[in-house]
């Protein structure tokens, strides 16, 4: 029986796959590319997420709960918590983001109590004890000891005996690297110092950042949490270690999700390619299917056998794709990093690990996409009228049908999806709308194609006449070829418009928020580095400086467990906020006397879900503050949201007079270089950024391009799969038309004229695909710009159409389609004209 099955499979499945090896290989490659990209992006995201979670979790050791506060809290809380019933161990922690000297970014330093931390983090308690001993012995008077995690040591290039240099305010501090902790002790990119040292060196005397808690066996976490919450100061909260990991991942979630969606687009395009090739095969093999039915293969068996052919292509592509995906993920992690260049996970250097189950899921996904792509062609093949097809195999190739009710339903559903809110913070309805729109465009293609072909001028030349007549007569083939281009090109157009809109908006925003001539920046949100008012006064006295404005970057706690947002306390005139901010909405209503005026970034406004003019409570440090929303501004810098308030109000409420950024306007006659030199002379030892607006603009655009580099690669692959579609479609038709070319050669057409015919057909199909792709892609770009981006990143942007780029791409695609058609037909043109005319199949 197995042998019988083999013969039948050979006749219906393997034979056809072998008979057109080029198309089979292309179909497998299309699925493989889609699966490879999807799997690679998934693996990189998953590995990065695991690493970030593990790193965030490792800061808590074996703790069951932790008390933390953004601005820290008084250490007097510690003994009170330790005495609460059910708390077995309480370990105080001072955590600071120490600004590194000589390089960008900060290093997390954990100030630990050796004795208390021993039971919660036994893996590095031994090292912490050494720290404490050094401290009490006074054995290292100038340099305190620090133990670095393995990733921190590797990232900073430091080892035992080296010096770690950080900056507090503008004051340099040095630590001697006493050793490197094994990875099992601390996963995060961090260092461990003695808690007293941390309080002393980082101006945190009497303050704690966190208390890690281990509960007594049998104690109820909920009850202990309730007891703790009764004595917590404002701004402090009880968290489970898992929440910290979630918070660490939240920031990058939108970016990772969008990247995954983009990778799945390639798989979708691959699935469509399978649909296109299988449909072409079903049309080409009409007589074969009819013969097999006549010989005794039932329609149900034909359906199953055709689906099996699709499944074989899918499984082969998926297995290849998974292997390729692992290789791409490895390459991506090594070359671009865990965030693929986006800058979310600096310092995270995970190694790639994958599981069989994940690979199996992606294999199933690839095979599933191929089977779904084969379903309609298989149903078509199983319904071929046997007698008619045996008489004339190509009777149906010119028949096209446009399902207008379906097109209208799809388009209405696409618009309806746009009205839905994001799901779990992700723009899933937006993606559904895009998919419906593209499928609607594909379903509408037959009618569009027929109308355009009907309008094509006649009588230009013999090749032109033959081409147009052929396209009219084989509208189903033509529709399938055009649809493949529409799918891939529309996505490329949409991405090009979205990326250009984003880049130009970022550029315009950068120019608008950087009106000064020179910027000095020391530290960022939460970092230990900053300038003092004395430093700023010194800067103000530099000859050539006309005026200065300053800002402080810190954090504010939002109400209702919404987490934190960046707080930008700056010199700002409440009546002229649009002078320094890109205001999207504002109110003229007077600010209530008991509230401070604030301006929310779009992300913060989306988070709070409050209208302009509304009021809300927030915490600056431990101090409750009533804020009145005066306006919403466009911000591309702080993804988790930012709140701007007047610095004078901030200083009054917090007492914090530190400064992170200084805007410097120079006298018209002053030299920027001369002022820069004087700044360096004034602040010789300190580490800070001193830049012109032009440099900052360049830096931000470089970061943007780095972030989007991977999306360009994904787009190119999608268009490559689209070109596969043209190639497969054309080569299938050329094979079927060998006899026609033979006849044309008999009646006097030269090979060059046949090549012209093919070139005109390829260019025509490419041109139609490009026009339809431009229209569909333009609509998709509107969804990306105004819905998907807004919901993913909470950023508005203005629409910019890269006309030159799109024109170049369109031309390149039409030329490619034309060349591919000629290339695919070269074999037919080489064949003996007499033989092909006599040939039956």
């Amino acid at each position: 029986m197995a042998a019988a099955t083999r013969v039948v499979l050979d006749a219906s499945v393997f034979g056809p796959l072998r008979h057109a090896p080029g198309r089979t290989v292309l179909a497998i490659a299309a699925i493989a590319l889609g699966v490879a990209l999807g799997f690679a992006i998934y693996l990189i995201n998953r590995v990065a997420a695991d690493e970030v979670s593990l790193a965030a979790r490792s800061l808590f050791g074996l703790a069951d709960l932790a008390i933390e506060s953004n601005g820290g809290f008084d250490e007097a809380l510690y003994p009170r918590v330790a005495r609460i019933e059910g708390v077995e161990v309480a370990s105080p922690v001072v955590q600071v983001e120490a600004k590194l000297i000589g390089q960008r970014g900060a290093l997390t330093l954990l100030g630990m109590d050796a004795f208390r931390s021993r039971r919660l983090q036994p893996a590095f308690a031994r090292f912490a004890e050494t720290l404490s001993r050094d401290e009490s012995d006074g054995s290292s008077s100038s340099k305190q000891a620090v133990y670095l995690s393995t990733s921190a040591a590797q990232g900073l290039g430091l080892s035992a005996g080296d010096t770690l240099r950080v900056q507090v305010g503008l004051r340099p501090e040095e630590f001697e690297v006493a050793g490197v902790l094994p990875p099992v002790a601390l996963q995060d990119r961090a260092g461990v110092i003695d808690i007293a040292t941390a309080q002393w060196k980082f101006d945190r005397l009497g303050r704690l950042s966190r208390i890690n808690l281990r509960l007594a066996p049998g104690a109820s976490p909920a009850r202990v949490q309730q007891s703790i919450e009764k004595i917590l100061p404002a701004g402090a909260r009880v968290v489970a270690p898992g929440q910290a990991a979630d918070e660490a991942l939240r920031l990058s979630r939108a970016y990772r999700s969008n990247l995954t969606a983009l990778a799945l687009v390639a798989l979708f395009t691959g699935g469509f390619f399978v649909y296109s090739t299988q449909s072409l095969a079903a049309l080409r093999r009409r007589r074969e299917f009819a013969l097999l039915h006549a010989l005794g293969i039932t329609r149900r068996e034909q359906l199953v056998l055709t689906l099996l052919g699709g499944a074989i292509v899918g499984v082969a592509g998926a297995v290849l794709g998974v292997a390729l995906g692992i290789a791409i993920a490895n390459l991506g992690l090594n070359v671009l990093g865990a965030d693929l260049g986006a800058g979310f996970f600096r310092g995270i250097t995970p190694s790639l690990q994958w599981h069989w189950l994940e690979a199996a899921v992606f294999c199933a996904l690839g095979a599933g996409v191929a089977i779904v792509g084969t379903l309609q062609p298989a149903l078509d093949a199983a319904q071929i009228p046997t007698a008619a097809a045996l008489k004339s195999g190509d009777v149906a190739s010119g028949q096209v049908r446009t399902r207008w009710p379906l097109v209208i339903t799809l388009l209405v559903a696409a618009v309806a999806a746009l009205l839905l809110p994001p799901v779990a913070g992700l723009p899933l309805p937006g993606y559904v709308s895009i998919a419906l729109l593209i499928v609607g465009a594909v379903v509408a293609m037959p009618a569009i194609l027929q109308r355009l072909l009907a309008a094509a001028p006649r009588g230009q030349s013999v090749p032109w006449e033959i081409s147009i007549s052929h396209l009219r007569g084989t509208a189903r083939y033509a529709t399938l070829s055009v649809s493949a281009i529409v799918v891939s090109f529309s996505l490329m157009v949409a991405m090009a418009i979205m990326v250009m809109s984003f880049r130009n908006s970022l550029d315009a925003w950068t120019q608008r928020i950087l009106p000064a001539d020179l910027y000095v920046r020391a530290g960022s949100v939460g970092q230990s580095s900053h300038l003092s008012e004395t430093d700023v006064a010194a800067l103000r006295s530099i000859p050539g400086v006309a005026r200065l404005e300053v800002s402080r970057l810190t954090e504010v706690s939002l109400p209702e467990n919404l987490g934190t947002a960046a707080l930008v306390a700056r010199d700002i005139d409440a009546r002229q906020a649009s002078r320094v901010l890109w205001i999207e909405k504002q109110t003229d209503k007077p600010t209530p006397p008991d509230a401070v005026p604030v301006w929310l970034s779009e992300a913060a406004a989306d988070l709070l879900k409050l209208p302009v003019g509304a009021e809300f409570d927030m915490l600056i440090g431990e101090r409750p503050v009533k804020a009145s929303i005066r306006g919403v501004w466009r911000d591309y810098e702080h993804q988790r949201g930012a709140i701007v308030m007047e610095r004078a109000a901030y200083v009054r409420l917090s007492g914090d007079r530190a400064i992170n950024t200084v805007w410097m306007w120079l006298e018209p006659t002053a030299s920027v270089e001369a002022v820069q030199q004087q700044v360096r002379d004034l602040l010789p030892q300190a580490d800070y950024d001193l830049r012109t607006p032009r440099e900052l603009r360049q830096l931000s655009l470089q970061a943007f391009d780095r972030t989007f580099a991977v999306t360009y690669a994904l787009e190119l692959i999608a268009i490559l799969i689209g070109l596969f579609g043209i190639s497969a479609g054309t080569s299938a038709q050329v094979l079927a038309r060998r006899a026609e070319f033979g006849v044309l050669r008999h009646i006097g057409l030269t090979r060059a004229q046949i090549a012209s015919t093919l070139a005109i057909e390829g260019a025509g199909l490419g041109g139609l695909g490009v026009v339809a792709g431009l229209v569909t892609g333009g609509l998709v770009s509107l969804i990306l710009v105004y819905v998907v981006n807004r919901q993913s990143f909470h950023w508005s942007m203005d629409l910019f159409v890269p006309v030159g780029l799109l024109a170049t791409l369109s031309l390149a695609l039409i030329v490619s389609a034309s060349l591919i058609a000629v290339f695919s037909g070269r074999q037919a043109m080489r064949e003996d004209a007499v033989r092909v005319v006599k040939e039956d199949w």
Partner: protein
Amino acid sequence: MLALESLTKSFDGARARQVLRDISLQVPDGEYIAIMGESGAGKSTLLNLIAGLDRPDAGRVVLDGEDLTLLDDAACTRLRRVKMGFVFQAFHLLPHLSVERNVALPLALNGVVGRDAAVRIDEMLAAVGLSECRHDSPAKLSGGEMQRVAVARALIHKPSLVLADEPTGNLDADSATEVLELLRSQLKRDRATGILVTHSTIAAATADRVYRLSARGLRQE
């Protein structure tokens, strides 16, 4: 025994017309008949009705006591698989299968494999004179050779009914004679019933009886 009882068939559409009207015929087992007629007389339509590839508007097609018009498509297909063989004008060999595999296909569909299958394939290829070409692809064969492969495929599983639709329409005179002789000898050897649809009087002359199909019905000549 094949019995056609009052078969009627019309086609819809812009040029709607009745192709077959009240056609009745009985073909005893082992008889080889030819049906001739003008183009458009309905010869191929009649053949399709006999094969169960099309449905009559009225009447019955009974093969070995089984009414094909009462069977659904799957049952009809299974019956074709066991009891019928086909030879077409355009050969209709599967291009991606070798000569041997094309011939073996009906056996495989009927579950005949292994030594039994090998012996029958060897015999059949020897009978049609193509043992030497068994591993070749159909594209390498001449028209006459392709049609001999088609004859072998039609008879390999010993069907009770073989339907041949203009089997010599694409062949030169010598090849046509060769194929017709082969078809008749193999039908007689297997005692199979044969129905040959043709324009050619030379081809029709190889059959036991000849019928003419016209607007007036089916008449024996």
